């Protein structure tokens, strides 16, 4: 029997043995920090979402408010029109004791514009036309 040399196990030079491997396990403090950060991130995410949603909600509310105000405006227009209706005004005037004048008197202020022609003047003009021959 011929003795053969035992094969040499090639070692990975990149790996090395270090002492105190147990110390690398995450400690409670690490977990606490990690959890806190995760929770903070979670809340930050919620906050950002809320911050983004808030204007949208406000916008929606504003739209609804605009519609309400527009409806109110239309209602007020209607109310004004109803209040100004001649039939209503006349009724109210009658309730207040206002009456139509029985006679209308035409007063021509001196020196203001041309004096209005009288019936006589007007009829004279008419007569001249009526008596014209063909």
């Amino acid at each position, binding site marked *: 029997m011929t003795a053969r040399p035992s094969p040499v196990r090639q070692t990975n030079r990149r790996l090395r043995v270090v002492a105190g491997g147990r110390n690398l396990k995450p400690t409670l403090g690490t977990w606490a920090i990690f959890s806190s950060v995760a929770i903070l991130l979670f809340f930050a995410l919620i906050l950002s979402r809320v911050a*983004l*949603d808030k204007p*949208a*909600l406000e916008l*929606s509310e504003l739209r609804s408010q605009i519609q309400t105000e527009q*409806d109110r405006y*239309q*209602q007020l*227009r*209607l109310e004004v*029109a*109803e209040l*100004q*209706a*001649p*039939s209503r005004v006349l009724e109210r005037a009658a309730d207040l004791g206002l009456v139509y004048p029985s*006679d*209308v008197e*035409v007063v021509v202020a001196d020196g203001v*514009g041309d004096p*209005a*022609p*009288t*019936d006589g003047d*007007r*009829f004279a*003009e*008419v007569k001249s*036309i*009526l*008596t*014209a*021959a*063909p």
Partner: protein
Amino acid sequence: MARRNAGRLSTRVVIIASIVILSWVGVGFRLFQLQIVQASNYEQRGVEQREKVKVLAADRGTIYDRDGRELAITVQGKTIGADTTLVQDPAKMAKLIAATLGIDEANVLAVLQSDHRWVTIARQVDEERAQLVENLEITGIYTYPEAMRVYPEGTLAAQVLGFVDPDGNGLEGLEFQYNTQLTGIPGEVRFEQDRNGNIIPQGLYEVEPATPGSDLVTTIDRDIQYIAERACQETLVRNKAERCTAVVLDPATGEILAMATVPSFDPNNRSESSQDDWTNWAVLGAYEPGSTEKLITIAGAIESKMVAPGTVFEVPDTLEVVKGSCAKQTTSSGVQINGCYHDAERHPTESLTVRDIVTRSSNVGTILVQKLLGNARLADYIEAFGLGQKTGADVPGESPGALNLDPTCPSCFASAAIGYAVSVTPLQMAAAYGAIANDGVWVQPHLVKDLVDGSGVHQPITPQTRQVVSQSTAKIMQALLQNVIQSPEGTGHNAQVDGYTAAGKTGTARKYVPGEGYTDNYVVSFIGMAPASNPQVVVGVVVDSPQIGESGGRVAAPAFSEIMEETLHRLGVPPDAS
């Protein structure tokens, strides 16, 4: 033994692994089915569940009077509905709701007891009454907003404005005529909602805004319209008439300041009115005008230089145009013979000038003038003044009237000369008098002066015009018509207007009923203008079948006077007479 156990374990592992693998394959297959094969289908279903499209109704345009006062307006009303499966004790609830809304209890009960789950109890109820129903807090009764058309002036100009159906489609009047322009184009809003129907913030929200309908600016003056309607109502009561129609026109522009028909109706609550009341008789009610038509005959003769105001005619009391017509009025078979004409009041043959003929409204004298004018020319002038054809006013269903001017008819032209054998509408006659008031220029009467779309762009309406007679003829006619009112012999004495000179003509005609012929009822009218020195307003009043007073001078002239006086005051026209 150990080897046999190891073999069993291996079999179990294989079976379990196979089950797990098959499960995963199944899951994978299902996922492939859902995510790849049917992906678009599920995506679509998801979108359908989430996304909603709501139609945004376009606001119907407002109808204004000439001064921008609302005559028809759209406001938000509420519709009251019910889920019949939730309503307890329908009889009791129907009583409560009916009492609150002021509607028929039986109808409400019938609706609540119907087989349908979702029912409508009342559409377009005003906010106040809807609130009262909401306050009742009845389970199963709900309200939702719905636009409603309101006419704040009630009966005012009802036939002119017309009305819409509950879905906002115009059915009568301007609402019908301008329905397309008033309606606008609906828009839509597309949004995402959660399972409770709430809009998802940050979700899709796209709005395509509705284009509101155009606003209509009418030529109607609300106050003058009221004046005309009130005067007509008083005339109706005073004279126990069937109907009264009044038209107030600006002759220079053709703008209709008022168009009244009484009896009227309230478009806000038209269920209590008859269809007859909805009719705008000013444009649909063709009638034989009687003596108001003489304006055309005389104006035509003067314009054609056939006569002058001073031309004298020997006017008998009776004129037989068709031989034998005065001896008997009907044939042996009962057919009416036309062709015998006489004046309203008996008189011996006398010399009358054209002025006298107009002033006294002599039928025989006018027919003598027509004989000089000739049939063809009379037909031309009738056409030129716009009779027998639609005026083109922007109202639906306008009647053109009718002309019976057959050249072979022996009496038709004589009849037409005094306002028979033709039928006209009050608006046609007002426009014809408007031509005289406007120095011979006929202007198309119209009700709408402007359309304003949602962007504020105006579309003003331009009426047609045509010269009918010369200015001098028009002036002569104005003077002749003034004489009708001013002269003690004139038939229009009751048409005098305090503070103003006025000119006009009475009309009295027996009412013709198809199938019955001429009845004992009359259609009486007065059409005139003021101030006579410079006419700015034309008023036409037509009264159908008055039981008290049977002439235009007695029945229609006082209404003319009242409308004209208040209209001139309203327009600020300075008085021209003491």
